[in-house]
């Protein structure tokens, strides 16, 4: 064959055939596939397209998209390499199989004496036995060693005994290479290639909007059929669905199912240490073909198989937990009353904030939070934060701040606080607001203090007293302008503080006070502000401390409250939401798949494994013994070859030679 391949007179198709079956191409393709596969592991696949835009910028985003890098493994060029490999392997198998099959059975009875002598493994010796006996014991010996044996009479009364063991080795080649083809074909059947093709033809279109299932247009729906797919769906407890969503590019398609799946219950079991032990769903399958609905529990590693569909436990999420909330006003415009209302996770509602209307979107709920304390230096220290819920407050312009409130108070330096995280975008870490709890362990104390600070009359009143006391302590002479200006200052210090915390006050000092007076006035302003805040606090504090300890506790509370209020402007929400009760509803994340190619792939895998072991560990060994009678002496010429493990064969050949020599010696006695 190799001689022919050099001939220039081959037709184009013959040359193509030779090229496809060439080893160089095969090795190149194996390595090319390996390198191509790397790309898909380095660049995370099938992420939302907006993430890629952010990561690469608009230009490279386009370039990478054109190259199909967001879904390498179904990119055209990748499939082309794969197809070439299959083609090349097929050609190779087609070309080699006939000769291999022949080699499996052919005992090579035509070998010339000359070639036997020329073989790498070759021995000869004389024996006392006659020719017939010699042939008989050689055959018996080789037979006992597991060889297939055949004798052929040769010229001059000589006999050639051809023997072979491990002819199956050749089957190993056929199996392994056939397996590659079979696996790839089976895999092709299960790929989403057909969908891509249909999309390219314009028969289906990918839906990118977040809309209710019923509104999804027909061209984004796939009817029940035999095609392969892998989709997913979240079903809240007590609800059911008859579709699955297939993620495609930057959107999805809707796959209809021939049955309805209901999630009766979803459970998470925990180990004693708190780590999750199992995720399980109780499913009910409704199908007209069933006499009664099929009930089965599924868990990770234990899917439900029905009608060629497999339903897997893949994830879980919130299924619209009912939340009873209380909104504590933080901002003056939010009023002074706490308001109770009920909502659900994933609901959104309008909220009036002064003249502005904002959108309150409930996003998440978790019944337990055993987390590292974000304020603790030791990340190993875990703490129970109780239930948590997340929400977003979206302004008219569409910008949203994201919040995360924990419902168990968290101790910090011996005092209890409610923790509320806030951030401006998902890329940021949460910053935390610490709301101090009063002596009764409630927010009421903080709330009362806060509403006092919102009360202009009270501030006025306190400013008046403080102004008078201050001037009195100076020398007592009344000065109308000084009075007004001091009162105004005190008043506006508090207002400034309420607007932007200590930061705003410092900014004011920095920008509005002449450089020469900054040294003295700056600290004076700050201490005046503190004094004002303290007076306002004690003015409203209901319980007069009876012990020194209580008095200290009040001072500490005051400090905590002032810290919290100082950071309210950055917190950005007009209310603090407190969870008073909840009705937990979970959703089970199911993966639903149909893979008609699976049995084919498994068959290929079995062939591959058998083939590989046969190829490596079942060497094909051939022996020839030519028994010759020359001048009355019987001479044995032994030759052998093996297509694998030459070293072992060296040893084996040596041994079999000894064996035969010994046998001939013995029999001669």
């Amino acid at each position, binding site marked *: 064959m190799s001689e022919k391949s050099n001939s220039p007179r081959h037709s184009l198709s013959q040359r193509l055939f030779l090229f496809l079956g060439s*080893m160089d191409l*095969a*090795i190149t393709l*194996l*390595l090319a*596939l*390996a390198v191509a*596969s*790397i790309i*898909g*592991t*380095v660049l*995370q*696949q099938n992420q939302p397209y907006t993430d890629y835009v952010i990561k690469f910028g608009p230009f490279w985003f386009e370039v990478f998209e054109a190259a199909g890098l967001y879904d390498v*493994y179904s990119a055209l060029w990748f499939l082309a390499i794969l197809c070439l490999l299959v083609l090349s392997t097929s050609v190779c198998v087609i070309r080699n199989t006939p000769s291999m099959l022949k080699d499996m059975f052919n005992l090579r009875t035509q070998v010339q004496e000359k070639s036997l002598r020329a073989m*790498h*493994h070759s021995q000869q010796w004389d024996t006392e036995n006659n020719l017939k006996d010699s042939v008989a014991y050689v055959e018996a010996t080789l037979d006992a060693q597991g060889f297939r044996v055949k004798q052929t009479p040769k010229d001059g009364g000589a006999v050639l005994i051809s023997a072979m063991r491990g002819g199956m080795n050749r089957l190993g080649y056929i199996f392994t290479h056939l397996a590659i083809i079979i696996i790839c074909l089976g*895999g092709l059947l*299960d790929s989403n290639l057909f969908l891509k093709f249909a999309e390219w033809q314009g028969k289906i279109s990918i839906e990118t909007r977040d809309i209710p299932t019923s509104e999804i247009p027909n061209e984004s729906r796939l009817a029940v059929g035999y095609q392969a797919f*892998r989709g997913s769906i979240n079903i809240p407890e007590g609800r059911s669905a008859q579709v699955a969503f297939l993620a495609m590019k930057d959107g999805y398609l809707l796959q209809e199912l021939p049955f309805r799946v209901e999630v009766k219950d979803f459970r998470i079991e925990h*180990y*004693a*240490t708190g*780590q*999750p*032990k*199992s*995720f399980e769903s109780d499913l009910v399958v409704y199908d007209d073909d069933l006499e009664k609905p099929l009930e089965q529990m599924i*868990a*990770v*590693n*234990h*899917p439900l198989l029905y009608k060629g569909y*497999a339903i*897997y436990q*893949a*994830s*879980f999420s919130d299924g619209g937990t009912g939340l009873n909330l209380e909104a504590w006003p933080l901002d003056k415009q939010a009023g002074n009353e706490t308001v109770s209302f009920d909502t659900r996770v994933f609901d959104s509602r309008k909220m009036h904030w002064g003249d502005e209307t904002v959108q309150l979107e409930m996003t998440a709920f978790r019944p337990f939070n055993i987390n590292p304390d974000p304020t603790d230096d030791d990340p190993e220290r875990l703490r129970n934060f109780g239930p948590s819920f997340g929400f977003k407050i979206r302004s008219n312009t569409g910008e949203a701040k994201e919040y995360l409130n924990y419902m168990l108070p968290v101790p910090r330096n011996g005092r209890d606080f409610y923790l509320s995280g806030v951030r401006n975008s998902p890329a940021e870490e949460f910053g935390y607001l610490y709301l101090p709890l009063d002596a009764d362990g409630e927010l009421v104390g903080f709330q009362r203090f806060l509403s006092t600070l919102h009360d202009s009359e009270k501030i006025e009143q306190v400013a008046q007293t403080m102004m008078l006391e201050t001037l009195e302590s100076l020398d007592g002479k009344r000065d109308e302008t000084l009075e007004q200006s001091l009162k105004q200052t005190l008043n506006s210090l508090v207002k400034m503080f309420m607007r932007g915390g200590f930061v705003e006050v410092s900014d004011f000092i920095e920008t509005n006070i002449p450089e020469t007076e900054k040294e003295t006035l700056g600290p004076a302003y700050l201490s005046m502000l503190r004094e004002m805040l303290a007076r306002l606090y004690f003015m409203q504090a209901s319980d007069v401390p009876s012990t020194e300890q209580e008095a200290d506790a009040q001072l500490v509370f005051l400090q905590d409250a002032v810290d919290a209020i100082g950071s309210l402007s950055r917190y950005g929400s007009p209310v603090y939401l407190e969870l008073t009760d909840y009705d937990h509803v979970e959703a089970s994340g199911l*993966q*639903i*798949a149909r*893979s008609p190619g*699976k049995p084919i*792939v*498994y068959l290929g*895998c079995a062939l*591959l*494994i058998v083939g*590989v*072991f046969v190829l*490596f*560990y079942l060497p094909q060994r051939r022996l020839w013994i030519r028994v010759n009678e020359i001048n009355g002496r019987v001479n044995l010429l032994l030759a052998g070859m093996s297509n694998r*493990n*030459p*070293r*072992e064969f*060296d*040893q084996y050949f*040596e041994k079999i030679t000894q064996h035969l020599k010994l046998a001939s010696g013995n029999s001669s006695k």
Partner: protein
Amino acid sequence: MTNNIGILNNEPSRPIEQWLWRGLIFIAAALLIVRYFDVLDSYELSITVFTAACLAFLGQNWPGFRRHIIIVSALSFFAIQLYGDDLGIGKTNFFLSFILASQSAFMWMSALFVMATFAYFSGLLLRSPFTEKVGTVLTWSATTMGVVGLMVRWRESYLISPDVGHIPVSNLYEVFILFAVITALLYLFYERRYQTRSLGGFVLLVISASVAFQLWYTFEKQAHEIQPLVPALQSYWMKIHVPANFVGYGAFAMAAMIGVAYLFKSWRQEINPKGLLATSLPDLSIMDDLMYKAIALGFAFFTVATVLGALWAAEAWGGYWSWDPKETWALIVWLNYAAWLHMRMTKGWNGKPMAWWAIIGLFVTLFAFIGVNMFLSGLHSYGTL
């Protein structure tokens, strides 16, 4: 031709020894099955039978392995008896806390492997067969302690709580020990077969490196603590998928280290054919052959492991192939060695380029083994469940 024969010293054991061994394994397996018949499910029954068959097969011509299995069984039983039902005894009992508790056994294993590495290299450099033999003994001892440690750890996990109990092949820490042990066993097998102790240091080098990593992992990350299994790992596929993978990794690692020795020798031969390394290391052709053997073995087991992984994925993730990074890297490793084998078998390449390629192969394998866990995210990191 004839001068190669002395190299192969793989005389089969006498039939009486073989039958004694097979009988012993049969009795042990039968006792186990009879004693625990009520609690074993069909999977566990078949895995017991399969394991027994493997042990019987491996031990029939390999006296060292027979000894190893017997000692491991005895020590493990002893440790389990000492433990009884109380994990706390591990801290107070002398034998447990200093020798047999899994953590102590692993420390012994680590120390012995490092000592073995030194012994092999000293033997090579001093041309002292005795020192090399010490290396072999140390390697066997280290392997024994490693396997005992794994066995005892298995039991310890059940002592923590029955629902926490699992075979110790479930996290990076445990599989590192598995890697060290399997690589050592593979090496010991070929050492006996080819009578070449001079390669010991090279192979043990990679084992020592893994031991070093594992020690760092223990002290820096407290990784040795037994953790309960996350739901995704609660599958019987894990118990066969992981060990099959590590036969592959171990064999590839060994091939690479033989590649290193090969390059060393051919380099020294050019410079100083009479020098120490040039004469002490085995023939180039032997190393070439060994490299092929190791890669073929690794390839076969890696194929099995990948197929098992696909079967498992079909059950756990809803598809036998998801192009998850770990999966994809397994494919890359596999393709790489497939190309290597073709180069050698059909293009007849051998020698230095193949040695280099085997070494590069180790880095590819290493990335699939550790790099993926460290740098890439995917289903194997169990991010969602």
